[in-house]
Structures are given as C-alpha cells and as structure tokens.
C-alpha cells in the first residue's frame, strides 16, 4: 500500500485519536455512573487493597499459634475471634484474601488466554474446529466441581495446582463464547472490507475480530473470577485446596466448620467475605454487560 497520502492526513489522524479518546472517556463515564458497576467496583477495590496491604492491615501474624487463646470469641483484642490454633481469624482473613485474589487473577488470565486461543483457532481453522469443540464438550460434560476436585487431587493440593484445575474447568465455556462471537464478527461487513483492502490474517484477528469479541469475553471473565473464589473454598472444604498453614478464605472455613456451633466466627466471617467479594464481581459484571452488550443484559451462564 504505497498510496500517496494527502497532506492533511496527519490532522485527520489526530482527529480520529481524539474521537477515540472521547469515546473512551464517555465509556468510562457511563461505566462509573452505572450504579451496580460502581458498587461492584468499590467492593473489588476494597478487596484488592485489603490483599495488597495485608502486611499493614493485619493486627497479628496470620500463622502465629497461641495455644492459650484457642477458640476465643470476637473481642476488642481479636475482632473476629481466634481459631483452633489460637490464631487471629481477622488476620487470617486479611491474608486469605491474597490467595483468593491470586487464584482469581491467575485463573482469569489463563482462562482468558487459553479461551481466546482455542476459541479463535476453532473459528478460524476449519479442520481444528471439530477436534477442539468436541474436546471442550467432553470437558464440559463433567460436573464442573467434580472435574476440579479430581484434577486438584491428582495434581496435589497447592495454590498453583488449584489454579491449573480451575483453568481447565473454566476454559471450555470461555472458549465457546469467544468462538461464537468471533463467528458473528467474521460475518460482518467491515471484516470483508478489511480482507478486500488486503489486511493480513494476524491484523484482522487482533485489530478487528478480537477487539469486537472482547465485550462478551470480559463479561465472562468477571464471572470466572467470581466462581474461582468460590471454587477455591470448595476445594479447600474437600481437602484439596491450598494447604495450611498459610490461610486462604477456603481453608479458614474448612478448619472452622467442625466447630461452627461453638466458634461460629471462624467459618462465618470468611464465608461472608467470599459472598461480598463475589457479589461485587457479579455487580461489576452486570454493569459491564449493560454497557458493553445491552442486548443481553440480565442472563448469564454459570460454568
């Protein structure tokens, strides 16, 4: 493409850039004026800050054992009481949000990458479509929790293995969503024009198709984030989550559940934290969907 550009191209380019920035600004403004997105966003920010500032916020060492204070109820000294090791539950919850955040972020990133890769491949390379989609169908035919449990048990309980197990469990649906939206975008006029102008495959995929398939993906990923936090708790509950002594929201509940009547604070507080975090993510996802994809607001698949 060696066409001589008219002299005012530069200024046109600047115009386009400005327009894009304006669009981005209005997008952000619309997002933050959306009440559920805003509430969800605030919750997520608080959650993230708690995790990042755990060293500062936690009143005690989360693994400090003190057998003289076993199962102490909430008090001025221990706001959320102590657990069966005499450890401060509040400090453990604060540090536990780190594990949830790490698991959530890594699962989202890996699911996003793998899902996009597989979904795009399936929609773009015809002979791979059947193979990829049937394999994903196979993975989706497992009850999700069972697959995650089996994988976590097979790989051994650790944070990394929990991330792997959850990624494998959540990738299929994400890939499907990407594939479906890519197929829709592929059929659209501007792609055909791009082809006609001679844009390369890579450019078309990244510049046009993925950019347009992004909104359903983002919405799905906020949901994967939420489910990952719950799933970590379920894995811990069944003894295949991140192992002690490092706290995770799930293993705090798991350790507290046999004493739920005598020491309700151990299991109840981290359960509430999970519920609030997941609520925040769901609210954000709703807001994102309303704005990115107004046609489909309201409904969401669970993996």
């Amino acid at each position, binding site marked *: 493409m060696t066409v001589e550009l008219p002299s005012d191209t530069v200024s046109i380019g600047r115009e386009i850039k400005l327009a894009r920035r304006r669009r981005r600004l209005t997008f952000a403004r619309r997002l933050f004026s959306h009440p559920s997105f805003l509430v969800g966003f605030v919750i997520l920010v608080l959650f993230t800050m708690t995790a990042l500032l755990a060293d500062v916020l936690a009143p005690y060492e989360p*693994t*400090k*054992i003190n*057998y003289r204070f*076993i*199962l102490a109820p909430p008090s001025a000294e221990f706001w959320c009481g102590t657990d*069966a*090791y*005499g450890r401060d539950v509040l400090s453990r919850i604060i540090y536990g949000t780190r594990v949830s955040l790490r698991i959530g972020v890594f699962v989202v990133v890996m699911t996003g990458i793998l899902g996009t890769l597989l979904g795009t491949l399936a929609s773009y390379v015809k002979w791979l479509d059947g193979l990829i989609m049937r394999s994903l169908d196979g993975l989706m035919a497992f009850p999700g929790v069972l697959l995650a449990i089996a994988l976590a*048990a097979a790989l*051994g*309980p650790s944070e990394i293995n929990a991330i792997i197990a959850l990624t494998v469990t959540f990738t299929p649906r994400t890939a499907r969503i990407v594939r479906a939206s890519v197929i829709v975008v592929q059929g659209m006029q501007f792609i055909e024009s791009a082809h006609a102008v001679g844009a390369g495959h890579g450019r078309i995929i990244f510049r046009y198709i993925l950019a347009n398939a992004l909104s359903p993906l983002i919405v799905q990923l906020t949901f994967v984030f939420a489910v990952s936090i719950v799933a970590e708790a379920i894995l811990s509950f069944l*003894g*295949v989550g991140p*192992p*002690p*002594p490092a706290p995770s929201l799930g293993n705090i509940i*798991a350790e507290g*559940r*046999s*004493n*739920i*009547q*005598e*020491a309700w604070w151990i299991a109840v507080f981290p359960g509430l934290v999970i519920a609030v975090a997941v609520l925040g993510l769901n609210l954000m996802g709703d807001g994102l969907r309303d704005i990115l994809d107004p046609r489909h607001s309201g409904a969401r698949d669970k993996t």
Partner: protein
Amino acid sequence: MAQVKGGELIFVQGSNPPSLDGMSTSSQASRNINMNIYETLYGFSEDIKPIPILAEGVEISDDGLTYVFTLRQGVMFHNGDEMNSADVKASLERYRIVGATKNLLAPVKDIEITGDYEVTFHMEEATPTFLEAFSSPRAPAVIIPEEDGDAEAGKNSFVGTGPYKFVEYVPDSHVTIERFEDYSADTRSDGIDGFGGHKTAWLDKVTFRIIPEPGAQVAALEAGEVHILEQIPMPAARRLEDDPDIKLYENLRWAFTTFIFNLNVPPSDNVKFREAVQVALNMEAIMAISSEGLYTLNHRWQYEDTAYDPGQIGAEYYNQADAERAKALLDEAGYNGEEFVILTDPNIPQHGRAAVVIAEQLNAIGINAVINQVDWPTALNIRMQDEGWNGWTLQMGIEPYLGPVGLIATLASPARPHFVVPDAGLDALYQELIKGATVEERLETFKKIQAHLYEIFAIIKVGDSGLMHAARSNVKGFIPFRFPRVYDVWLEG
C-alpha cells in the same frame, strides 16, 4: 439397672468401613462394626490379657511347639450351622492368605484338625508372645464358616458367630446389623470382658451411620436423630458437658501422637539434628492443639502404669521446648538451612494440626520447616519412598494398645512400614523382646528399647491423645473400648 430389650440404636462414624470381611482389614471404621458380627478363638480381656472367646481353652506344650485349642460346643453361625474344627481350620488358612496381618500366623507350621471341637497348631519354633499376637484385634483372626474359606478378600458372606448379624451395607449411608437370636452366649463369665465375656444383644437393630462432617454429626446428636458419636469434637463436648440429654464418655488412652523421621535424607539423616528437633518441641502445645485438649503428656512408648511401663527413661528429652539446647545441637549437626519437609494429611485432623504446630516451633529455632499436606493415600505413598520427605505425623491407634510387641513390630526390620532405614540395634532388641519368656523378662528388654529410642531419635513420641465419645443420655450400658460394643447396650424410655 433393668435392661430393656428392643429398639434401634444409631451409631455415627465418619468414614465407610473399607471392608466388612473381618480378617482382611485393620481399619478402625471396619473394626467398629465387625467386632459385633465376628468373634475370634482368643481375644483381649478388659485388662489386655488373652482370654478364650470361641475357644474353651488352650494347652501349650512345655517346649512351646504345640498349641491344642479346644472349641466351645454349640456355637452357631448366623447361617444356622454349628461351628466346628473344620470351620476354624478353614478360617485360619484363609487368614494366612487374606489376613491383613497374616504374619501373626507365620510361627505356625500347620494347623491340624484333631477332633470335632479341637484344632492343634504345630509351631516352627517356640514363640512366647504368640498367644498375645493371635488375640490381636488389629486385623482379628475371626472364625467364619468353612464355605467362606476360599472367598477372596472382601468377598465372604459376612457370616460370623457374634451377637449381631449383618443385614445391609449402603456405602456413604449406613451399615445395619440386627440381633442374632440364636447367639450362643459365653456363660463362663457374668458380663462382657474386653473383646469376650458374656454378651447380650438387647437391641433389635443397630445402624452404623456414615456422616463425614463432624459438625453435622454433632447436629444430628443434638437433634436426637442419632444415639452415639464415635468421636465428638472437643469444643462441642465442652459446650454439651452440662446438657442433660447428652452424656460424654472419655476414652483417654486412644492413640499415640507420633512424628516419624526419614533417616535416609538430609537433614533428618543426622542424629544430632533429630535430637535438636526432639528437645526443641513443646509437646504440651502440640498436644493441646492437635487433640483439641484431650491428651496426656507421656514420654513413654507404653501407657503409664501398664505391664510394660518403662518408667522415667527418656523423660529428660521430652517436652523440653529448649531452644538454646536445640540451636547448639543444630550447630553440632552442621545444619545450614536445608529444607525440612513435614509430610501430613488433612483426613485425620490430628495429623494436620500436629504438623502445623511442629512446623511453627521448628521455624522458631531456625529450621526451614515446610509442610507438605497431601491426601491420605498420597501421604502413605510418599512416606514409603526413600526421598521427598523428612518427617511424618502419625496417630498410632491400636499398636500401643497391643503392647510392646505390636508397637515395635512396625518399627523393626524389614524396612518399612514406618522406618525407611531399619535400625540394627532396634532389630536386635525386637528379637530379644519376642523371645522373652515372661512378662518380667520382656519388660527388661522393653526398657532397653525405650532407652534406645531416645538415643536414635528416629521417631518422636509427642503424647497420648484421647477420644471423646458422646451419646444421648437414654443410651445405657455403653462402656468406651477399642470399638463400640453395641451388645450389652440398651435404650431407656
């Protein structure tokens, strides 16, 4: 105390019995049920002495090479047949193949039927501790009908001679047994005595319900849906202490909490390092947390004041929490921060809890202790390997109860289950122990073993941990033991 006949008792345990074939398993979850269905020729009395149960008695020759067992007559199996010597021989021959501790019959050369109600064991060599081993309830040498003699492990018809007979097993839900109306009670004694004695089935039916969640177990007991919990978490026990509907039963001498070293890899291959761990540990803190507070501090490798109590030997190393001495020993061992991997599992809660406390205490004296918590089958797999772990937490339940032979057998040659590398000194002492002709001789040997264990520091005794049972207060006659004896228990009102 007027016993009441009838009713259904619901007993709760946490896990499925791996097998209802009495001889083929050593699991506690199976023993709970099986010992109400099956019986052995000999078993332990309340004070852990071998007593005849299905046997009338035994004549041991002076050279210790022949054992003539006479059988009680008129004992009926649940299938309606009478027990005779052919059944006994068939059962024991099967035990040699599928018995979970079949080695206990290794000293027996052959079993001969010498009468309708008499079998004779011909021994390879004199083994003074044979009758004790033969009475062991770990994987009991139960007597089953001759027809089941060829059945594969787990494939027998679950027919025994006990006061209750098997009805049904729905895994993850329940096992049901019901009163065996033709039970031939042992009239030689007045009441129950350990695994034997005069047993009476008052209840029509007993259901062993499988409830995995301890919290749900307690909830079911409080709601009156079930009658007895095999184990109640201690915090719940404390809460229900004064509840008139609930009665608690302490079973203080239930298990040893132990910590086993891998002698094959650094840093735990160094005896000075292991000694440092021994003196560093605060056993009181470990036991308080791992047992939830139901424990006895005890450095002995036997329960205190039992026949083989070795006294104060080793006490000077126990519960020291001596960081200075430990650090000096670490220096002596040349320890410089190698990783010390503590293997544990969450399935037996005491294991995981002990590991967490041990790791914290070791980190405090500068040992780079890390916990590798995996599920139980994985833990059992890893600890059999030469490498990949340094220490392992283990609750020893039935072994300490069996006395010194049963306990030390798991530590002596050949290598494993517990020691990856056997210790020659301990092996020699073990041989001396099983050859000891009298209790006094064996006690002297056991004292040497106790001293030796505190020289090699290959396994650490953390403490004695108890088990708390809980029952509805209308359950009468329940006496805590190594398994729930649901005979001689009745429901009031």
